[in-house]
């Protein structure tokens, strides 16, 4: 018999610090698989946001930098402008990207920067102990919304994939999930698609991945996966919100 | 009077609670106390530890490099804290999870306590921490064991009497074990 599934070679062979069942691990693997698939391990530069995935540089066998919280898209812009021929991606959480990093993600997308953004939406600030995120569902209890998120005080969960899809500079904006094998396979396609479009120089590509933070949701790992399916997806529908060869953005400088 | 102790173990072993109770009782007994946990990222990886200092004087440093004593509830903790205990100090070892052959110091007093096993016999391994605390207090007399047991109800306000009973038993059994070992 021959091996049909193994650890991608651009994923370092070591234990992670993630909680048991945290799909950050899955997302890491999907990105690594895309890097291997396009054989760009030596031509890829990763930018990690600050969050549970800040240690990305320990897990990927590629060049990488740790950006200040929320600023990964700006850092990636600087890198890409110097190395337009390299594959550049950011890996950010919902606090990082949808809260403190709102301005950077929107303007980077609007500039059509030819980078890929992997966005892990787990509806909380995982690393810092489960505080409310911009993506936290209405009524969801977190350490800073102890009575449940109340729109009158806290506003509404933001749908980033949809919002970014309204921007001209965006070539691809999609939302996938990782809560079961079927969805993981779709998510894998989405990540590949994004890297492929970047290779073609089509502009900004964005993949939102719904993820469970069962530790801060205070449920068992499997519970978390169910929640993603039953509570997150109804509010954060899966699908492609924009896919566009933007003539404007082709063959730059 | 000055006394410091580092308590350490796995996440789930109720280390912080032991430390909390010790500090609380010492405070009630009019002592100065500090309670200093390892926090943040260090906590990742699932080990927990907490330093408690009890003193009749103002307490300076809340951290201590060479405590009088330590309670180690699992092996990683033994590795880390056995060397720190100062000469002539005291080390309480949870032999249910620690192979006592792994201990090295000759110059400190050790109490080998099968905390989990005792707790198991009492019907719930979760109470291993209470067994250990009982034994520790009996041994060190930093605070009064009775006072500690008295205050269980207020420490666990909305727990059923049975729960209090069990924990009382756990502490007492731990204390007895320590007393026997002299």
């Amino acid at each position, binding site marked *: 018999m021959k091996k049909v599934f193994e650890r991608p070679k651009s994923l370092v062979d070591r234990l992670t610090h993630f909680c048991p069942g945290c799909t950050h691990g899955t997302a890491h693997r999907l990105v690594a698989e895309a890097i291997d698939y396009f054989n760009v391990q030596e031509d890829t530069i990763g930018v990690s946001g600050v969050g549970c995935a800040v240690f990305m540089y320990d897990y990927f066998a590629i060049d990488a930098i740790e950006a200040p919280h929320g600023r990964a898209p700006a850092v990636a812009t600087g890198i890409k402008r110097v190395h337009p021929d390299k594959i550049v991606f950011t890996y950010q959480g919902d606090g990082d990207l949808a*809260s403190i990093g709102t301005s950077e993600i929107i303007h980077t997308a609007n500039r059509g920067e030819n980078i890929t953004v992997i966005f892990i939406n787990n509806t909380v600030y995982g690393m810092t102990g489960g505080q409310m995120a911009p993506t936290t569902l209405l009524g969801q209890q977190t350490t800073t919304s102890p009575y449940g998120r109340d729109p009158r*005080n806290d506003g509404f969960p933001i749908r980033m994939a949809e919002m970014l899809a309204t921007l001209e500079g965006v070539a691809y904006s999609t939302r996938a999930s990782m809560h079961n094998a079927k969805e993981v396979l779709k998510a894998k396609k989405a990540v590949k698609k994004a890297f492929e479009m970047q290779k073609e120089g089509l502009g900004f590509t964005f993949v939102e991945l719904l993820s469970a933070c069962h530790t801060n949701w205070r449920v068992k790992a499997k519970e978390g996966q169910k929640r993603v399916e039953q509570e997150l997806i109804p509010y954060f529908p899966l699908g492609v919100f924009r896919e566009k060869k933007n003539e404007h953005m082709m063959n730059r400088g | 009077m000055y006394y410091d102790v580092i308590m350490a173990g796995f996440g789930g072993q109720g280390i912080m609670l032991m430390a909390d109770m010790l500090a609380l009782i010492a405070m009630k007994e009019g002592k100065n*106390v500090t309670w200093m946990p390892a926090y943040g990222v260090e906590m990742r990886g699932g080990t927990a530890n907490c330093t408690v200092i009890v003193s009749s004087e103002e307490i*300076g440093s*809340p951290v201590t490099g060479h405590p009088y004593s330590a309670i180690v509830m699992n092996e990683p903790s033994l590795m880390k804290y056995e060397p720190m205990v100062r000469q002539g100090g005291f080390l309480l070892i949870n032999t249910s999870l620690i192979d006592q052959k792994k201990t090295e110091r000759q110059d400190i007093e050790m109490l080998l306590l099968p905390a989990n096993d005792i707790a198991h016999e009492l019907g719930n391994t979760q109470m291993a921490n209470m067994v250990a605390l009982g034994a520790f207090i009996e041994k060190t007399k930093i605070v009064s064991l009775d006072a500690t047991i008295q205050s269980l109800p207020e420490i666990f306000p909305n727990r059923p009497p049975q729960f209090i009973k069990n924990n009382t038993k756990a502490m007492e059994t731990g204390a007895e074990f320590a007393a026997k070992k002299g």
Partner: protein
Amino acid sequence: MAEKILLKGNIALAKGAIAAGCRYYFGYPITPQNDIPEFLSGELPKIGGTFIQAESEIASINMVMGASAAGARVMTSSSGPGISLMQEGMSYMAGSELPCLVVNVMRVGPGLGGIAPTQGDYFQATRGGGHGDYFNIVFAPASVQEMFDLTVKAFELADKYRNPAMILCDAILGQMKEPVVLEEREVSKPPAKPWSLTGASGRNPQFLKTLYLSDGEQEAHNLELKNKYDVLRKEEVLYEEKGLNDCEVVIVAFGTVSRIAKTAIQNIKKEGIRVGLIRPVTLFPFPTEIIRKTARNIPRILVVEMNTGQMFEDVKLSIENKIKIRFYGRPGGGIPTPEDIMREIKVLINEKSV
């Protein structure tokens, strides 16, 4: 006297804010101070207050600016990177003389850094990390009790001087538990704020700004600010002193380090070496006077910090006569042990005199 309760430093600080009548909190999460927003998000709504988790530290400080302009006692809290992001806003608040409390439970810097105890943000706090000629009123608690008391004090001085106040502490003070007495005293209600924006009903419209264009106006404003800072230097200095009248060395240290120093002082006494302590409680205004006076009588000063020598400069600036002064610091989360400090004391004593 009210009874003692065992509290975490961060919680004591949050309770201090409530005791001071602060009902508005705007902030963004960051370790090691998350206990503060987490506690207040539960408490403030109960007492008719407002808790908003802002989208960023920049939004936080600007919401604070708005609430302060509206006349409220208001606060935010963060740590290193977040405090850096607030520098523009803090400069604006200093410029438009808006009171508030900003809490910095330090983390290691520069950069993201870990959350081990450190004191690397002393310069930023005391030199106004923002642009322009201004200062914050900076408090450095050294116990959980002071986390409560100085928070109340900070709100009072902020209002009294219409100036941002800051609590600067290391993670140990935020995370440790100690017995605290939550003073019952009737906390001074915020003073009347005739300058605040309430809608111009029954009076002329008024505004708050920092841009002055007519000749000399801006310079006059800056000189007024300077006068205010000079008054603070004269009136509001706080410090703790210990054993100054009978010692051969004096240690100057703040926050957690001052407590480690106390342990060192106790231990070294057993060896017959008498060491005194000056602990600045306000970092701005800095206790220059007592240090200057002390330096006239005691020939040696040891400054200990958890950084590479920041308060050290203020100590040197305080001393006018030639004495032996030494610095010992551990940056990046290293904690000086009592043994370290005792060693340094001896080195200093054995230095051939100048």
